[in-house]
């Protein structure tokens, strides 16, 4: 059924999702998102929390920012990171719809298997 609905997909949205999924494929970056879900933080704070160099953390934040998952703002000499909530919703909403399809299939498969077991 995915192909019937495909026509509606806008290419730009697909590219955004691609960037977001790539950003989420890294454990540190997922950790950063969870952290920012609790409170805003500076890049220095994040580097310390994840035991990482400032340069390393800047790279991770840049990937998240490019994917729209994080927004940053510089106040004085400190760059503060916040969660880009809307885009994270889009990514996880996709996974959830995919899960719903398979979950619905497998719940019906359970019934088929129950009948096979009775034989």
């Amino acid at each position, binding site marked *: 059924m*995915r*192909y019937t609905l495909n026509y509606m*997909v*806008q290419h730009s949205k697909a590219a955004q999702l*691609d960037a977001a999924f790539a950003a989420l494929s890294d454990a540190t970056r997922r950790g950063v998102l969870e952290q920012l879900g609790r409170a805003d933080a500076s890049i220095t704070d994040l580097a310390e929390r994840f035991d990482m160099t400032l340069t390393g953390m800047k790279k991770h934040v840049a990937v998240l920012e490019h994917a729209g998952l994080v927004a940053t703002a510089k106040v004085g000499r400190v760059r503060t990171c916040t969660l880009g909530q809307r885009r994270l919703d889009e990514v996880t909403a996709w996974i959830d*719809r*995919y899960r719903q399809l398979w979950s619905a299939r497998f719940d*019906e498969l359970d019934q088929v*298997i129950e009948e096979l077991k009775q034989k």
Partner: protein
Amino acid sequence: MKNDTTVERKSEREVVITRTFNAPARLVFEAWTKPELMRRWWVPKSSGLTLLSCEMDVRTGGTYRFVFRNPSGPEPMAFFGRYLEVSPHSRLVWTNEEGGDAGQVSTVTLEDRGDTTRMVLHELYPSGEAFDAAAGAYDGMPESFDQLDELLAG
């Protein structure tokens, strides 16, 4: 009680779905490989689709073809491909060719644990773009956000 279905995006072009079934692998494999059984669960009632035909020649190199009717589309649509590997009760690999070169290769692995079977379904797309094009199709499905809650709850 229903078992959980989990979905994990492993990379930009692959996704892994896991599920446990309360039956030995032999029965789960049977449900994946017999057309008369497959047609009872592959198109869930909630999808609104009707399965018109279901042909499966389940052997390495054999082909399959499912034809559906979508209430919102006048033309029936076909899903088809070829079995790359058929290993009874443990592994099934097939292609999805309805999307041309953009189709994924699907692998089902069954791990028999006596009274239960752990199933892993791995879907590998040829590229991240192909994955995203397929993923975009799910925009038409109903939404819920419990997966988001899980992620944010850590």
